C-alpha cells in the first residue's frame, strides 16, 4: 500500500538529511507504529506519505514514495486526499469548518461525493467514533479528546485507504487515549484501513501495532522483535527485559501471566527502593478527602466542616506548609472551574495532579501563580497571596512552566533569553546561563528558542523559571511530546530539585511519570479533589491512573521498573 524506495529528505538549511535512504513497504490493512527518539524524522516520514513533504514543507526528496500506486512527486496532497487521511499533532490546526457535522463532511465535499453518500457516511462515522451526541456542537466547545476524535473522523469519511497520525494521544488523558486507539483498531480490523502512526507514549500503543518501524535505523519488524532491541520502550518491556522473559510481553495481560515467579522473588521486600528515603522524610500525607463525592447536601457539608476542624488541630504540630490552599473556588463566567479545593504542599515534596482533560488542573496551577484570582477561599504561597503579590517578587517564591513552554520565551536567542531571565529575577548575570549549561549541555548561545526540540525548549523554560530559585515549582503537562530519553533526564532533574528542598507540583496525564516522581497523587474531577494520598495507594487502586508495573505486579505496591531493579 505504501512503498518507500531509497527515500532521503533534506531541508534547505540543514547539512544532514532528515531521512536517509529509507526503504520500506507497508502492506494493506496493517497498523504500523513509528518509534524512535525525538528528531529522527518521524513527522517527516509521515508527511512524505501524505505528500505534504515536500510539496508543502519545502526541502528536497530523493527516491520514490508511492501510495496505492500513486507517486507523491507527481501528485500534490490534494490529489492524494482520497487515498490518504492525515491528522497532525495539533488537532485544532486541522479544522476548517465550525461544527462537528460540517467538519466530517468537508473532505467529502472537496472530493465531490454525491450528497446521499455523504449523508450516509457522516452518520456511520458519527456512530463509529461515538460522536452522535456532539453532531451539532461548535468545535470550539469540545474537549481535547473529543477534538481528536472529530479530527480522525473528518479524515475517515472519504474512506481513505491509508490513515496517517502524528502523536494522536499525546494531549489526551489515559481514558480518552484508549477511546481513540480502540477506534483505530476497529478501523484496521473492520475496514482494512492501513494505519501509520507515530507516538512517544509507547505504553499506550505498542500492543495495538502489527508492525513497528524503528527510526533512524529504518528496520521494520514485529513489535516483540523490535522492542527487544529498541532504545525506546514502554515499562512493560523494560520489566520483561529485566526479568529475562522470552518472548517479550507487550501487554500488561501477557506480562501478568508470567509475573508469578517474579512476584515470588519480590515477596516480602519493601517496595520503596530509591524513593524510600524521600518518602519517609516527607510529611505524612493527608487522607483522601471528599469521600468520592457521593454524599450530597447535608452530609457533605458536615464532612467538610469536620475536616476543616481536624486539620486546624493537626497543623500546629507539623511545620507550616509552603503551599496552603483552603476552600478554593474559581468561577469563569457561569462555569465553576474549581470547587472547595484543599491542598497543602511541604518543602521537598513532589505532588502529581491528575484527572481527565478539563478537570481543572491547569486552572489550579494558574491560580497558584496568581494568573487567576480565586473567587473565594484562600491561597498562600510561602505566606503570600499570589494574585496580589508583585510579579517580580512572586517569581522568587513560585515558578510555573506552562503547558506550552514557548509562551515563556520572548527573545531570539538562548543567550538573550538568559540575560532577560537574570534581569527579571534580579540575580547575578550568568545564573540562568549556568543553569542552562547544566540542564541542557551543548546548546549554543546563538540558537533561536524556536529551533530547539520540544524537550530542549521545555528545559530552557525550566531553567528560566529556576533562575529565581523559587522554593515551589509548578509544571503543567511537562512530558507532552518528550521521548523516553528526554523524560528520563527531566525526571533526574526534578528528583535532584526535590532533594534540594524544592516542592514540586506537576499536572500530568502521564501515569508513568507520576509513578516515578510523585510522593503524593491528587486526583481532580469536575473541579473537586476526589483523592489525595501517597502515590502507591492512590494509583494502584485506580485502573485508569495506575502505571504498567503496578498493574503487572498488583496487589504488591511496585510502581516503576527502577524500584524492582533496586529490590532484586
Amino acid at each position, binding site marked *: 500500500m505504501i512503498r518507500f524506495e531509497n527515500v532521503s529528505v533534506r531541508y534547505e538549511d540543514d547539512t544532514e538529511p532528515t531521512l536517509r535512504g529509507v526503504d520500506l513497504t507497508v502492506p494493506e490493512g496493517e497498523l504500523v507504529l513509528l518509534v524512535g527518539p525525538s528528531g529522527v524524522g518521524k513527522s517527516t516520514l509521515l508527511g512524505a506519505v501524505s505528500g505534504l513533504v515536500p510539496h508543502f514543507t519545502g526541502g528536497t526528496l530523493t527516491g520514490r514514495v508511492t501510495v496505492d500506486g500513486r507517486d507523491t512527486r507527481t501528485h500534490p496532497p490534494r490529489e492524494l486526499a482520497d487515498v490518504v487521511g492525515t491528522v497532525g499533532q495539533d488537532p485544532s490546526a486541522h479544522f476548517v469548518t465550525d461544527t462537528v457535522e460540517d467538519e466530517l463532511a468537508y473532505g467529502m*465535499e472537496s472530493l465531490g461525493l454525491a450528497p446521499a453518500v455523504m449523508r450516509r457516511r457522516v452518520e456511520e462515522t458519527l456512530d463509529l467514533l461515538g460522536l452522535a451526541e456532539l453532531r451539532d456542537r461548535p468545535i470550539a466547545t469540545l474537549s481535547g479528546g473529543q477534538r481528536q476524535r472529530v479530527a480522525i473522523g473528518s479524515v475517515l469519511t472519504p474512506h481513505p485507504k491509508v490513515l496517517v497520525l502524528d502523536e494522536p494521544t499525546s494531549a489526551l488523558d489515559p481514558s480518552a487515549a484508549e477511546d481513540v486507539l480502540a477506534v483505530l483498531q476497529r478501523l484496521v480490523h473492520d475496514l482494512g484501513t492501513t494505519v501509520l502512526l507515530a507516538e512517544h507514549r509507547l505504553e499506550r500503543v505498542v500492543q495495538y501495532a502489527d508492525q513497528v518501524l524503528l527510526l533512524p535505523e529504518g528496520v521494520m519488524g514485529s513489535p516483540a522483535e523490535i522492542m527487544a532491541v529498541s532504545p525506546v520502550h514502554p515499562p512493560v518491556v523494560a520489566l520483561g527485559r529485566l526479568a529475562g522473559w522470552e518472548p517479550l510481553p507487550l501487554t500488561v495481560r501477557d506480562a501478568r501471566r508470567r509475573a508469578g515467579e517474579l512476584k515470588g522473588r519480590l515477596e516480602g521486600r519493601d517496595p520503596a527502593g530509591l524513593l524510600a528515603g524521600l518518602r519517609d522524610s516527607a510529611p505524612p500525607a493527608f487522607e483522601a478527602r471528599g469521600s468520592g463525592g457521593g454524599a450530597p447536601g447535608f452530609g457533605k457539608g458536615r464532612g467538610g466542616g469536620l475536616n476543616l476542624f481536624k486539620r486546624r488541630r493537626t497543623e500546629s504540630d507539623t511545620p507550616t506548609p509552603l503551599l496552603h490552599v483552603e476552600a478554593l473556588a474559581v468561577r469563569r463566567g457561569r462555569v465553576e472551574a474549581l470547587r472547595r479545593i484543599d491542598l497543602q504542599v511541604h518543602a521537598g515534596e513532589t505532588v502529581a495532579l491528575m484527572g481527565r482533560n478539563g478537570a481543572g488542573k491547569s486552572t489550579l496551577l494558574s491560580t497558584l501563580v496568581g494568573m487567576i484570582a480565586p473567587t473565594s477561599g484562600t491561597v498562600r504561597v510561602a505566606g503570600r497571596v499570589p494574585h496580589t503579590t508583585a510579579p517580580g517578587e512572586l517569581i522568587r517564591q513560585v515558578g510555573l512552566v506552562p503547558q506550552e513552554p514557548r509562551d515563556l520565551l520572548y527573545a531570539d536567542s538562548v543567550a538573550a533569553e538568559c540575560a532577560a531571565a537574570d534581569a527579571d529575577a534580579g540575580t547575578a548575570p550568568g545564573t540562568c546561563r549556568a543553569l542552562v549549561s547544566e540542564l541542557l549541555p551543548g546548546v549554543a548561545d546563538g540558537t533561536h528558542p524556536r529551533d530547539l526540540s520540544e524537550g530542549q525548549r521545555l528545559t530552557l523554560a525550566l531553567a528560566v523559571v529556576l533562575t529565581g530559585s523559587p522554593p515551589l515549582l509548578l509544571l503543567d503537562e511537562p512530558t507532552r511530546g518528550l521521548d523516553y530519553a528526554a523524560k528520563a533526564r527531566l525526571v533526574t532533574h526534578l528528583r535532584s530539585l526535590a532533594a534540594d528542598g524544592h516542592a514540586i507540583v506537576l499536572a500530568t496525564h502521564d501515569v508513568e511519570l507520576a509513578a516515578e516522581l510523585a510522593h503524593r497523587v491528587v486526583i481532580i474531577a469536575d473541579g473537586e479533589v476526589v483523592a489525595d494520598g501517597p502515590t502507591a495507594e492512590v494509583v494502584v487502586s485506580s485502573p485508569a491512573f495506575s502505571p504498567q508495573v503496578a498493574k503487572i505486579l498488583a496487589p504488591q505496591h511496585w510502581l516503576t521498573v527502577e524500584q524492582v531493579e533496586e529490590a532484586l
Partner: protein
Amino acid sequence: MIQKTGPGLSTFAAPEASRANALHAGAWWLWALGLAVAASRTTNPLLLGLLVGVAGYVVAARRTDAPWARSYGAFVKLGLFVVFLRVVFSLLLGSPIPGTHELFTLPEVPLPDWAQGVRIGGRVTAEQLVFALYDGAKLATLLICVGAANALANPARLLKSLPGALYEVGVAVVVAMTFAPNMVADVARLRTARRLRGRPTGGVRAVLQIGLPVLEGALERSIAVAASMDARGYGRTALVPASVRRTTNVLTLGGLLGVCAGSYGLLAAEGAGYGLPLLGAGLLAAMAGLRLGGRRTVRTRYRPDRWGPRAWLVAGSGVAVAVLMIWANAYAPEALHPGVVPLEAPELPLWPAVSILVGLLPAFVAPAPKENA
C-alpha cells in the same frame, strides 16, 4: 392505538431546531436587512427603539449558544458607542442646525481665517443635541440589525449558498476571519504568561514584547491550517475542455464590462436609454460565466439549508417591515421625522408602529433552539 396526526394547532408551532430544519442563513439576513432599511427611513426615537426591541426579542428567542451567537452583545455596545460619539462630535464641532434653546457654551478655540466654517467649542443648543441623538440612534439601530443577523445565522452556512466558483474564495475568507479571535486569545495568554517571568502584565511594553510571538504563532497556525486543507482536497479541480475555460473567461469579463457600462449609462444624463438593457445583459453574462466556472470545481454540498415555508415567512416579515415603513413615509412623514426646529416631543404613530411589530414573526415561526443549560 393510532395516534391522531391531523393538522392540529401544534402542527404550526415552531419545531425544535436541528440541522434538518435549520433556517436558511439568507432568510435571517433578508429579515435583518429589512429591519435596517426600515430604520434608515425614520429618525423617530420611539420607532427606532421599537425596531431595536423587535430585533433583540427575536435574538433572545431564537439564538443558539454557539460562539458566533455571542456577537450580538458586542454589536449593541458598538451601537451605544456610535450614539455617544455622534453626540460628542456635535458638542465639540458644533452643528449647522439653528437653535434657540441654548444650554451652555463651551470655550471656543480661536481658529485662523482660512479655517472659516469650522468651529471647535462654542454654543451648544438643545436642538443640536437632539438632532445628534436622533442621527446616532439611527446608525446604532442599523448596526444592531446587522448584529442580530450575525447572531442568528451561522456565517459559514451562508457560504454554502454561494455559487460553486466562489466557494473556495469564501472558505479562505471565513478561515481568515477565525484568526482574529485566535490572535486575541493568544495575546491574552501571552500577557498573563509574562507574569511568570516576573514582568508586569499591562502597559504598552507588554504588548510590544509579545507582538512578535503572537504574529509568529498566527503565521504558524495559518500554515498548519493551509496544509490540512490541502491534504483534505481543498482546491481540487476537474479537467474542463479549453473551449469551456475560454467561454467562461469571455462571459465573465464581458459581463462585468457590460455591468460597468450599463451603470454608467443609468447614472449619466444622456445614456438612460441603453443603460438598463446593457446592465441586464451584463448581469446575465456574468452569472452565466460564474455558473460555467463552477464546472471546474468538483465540490458538492453536504446538507445545504433548504429554503422552506418558514424561511419565506422570516424573510417576508423583514421585507414587509421595510416596505410598510417606506409607505409610511408617504402617509405620515411628520410622525416619522419628529421636528427638531422647533423642538417637539416625538409621538408614537400607530400604524408605523404596528408595521414594525410584523418583524416579530420570526420569534414564532423560526425553529426554536434546544433548551439546554
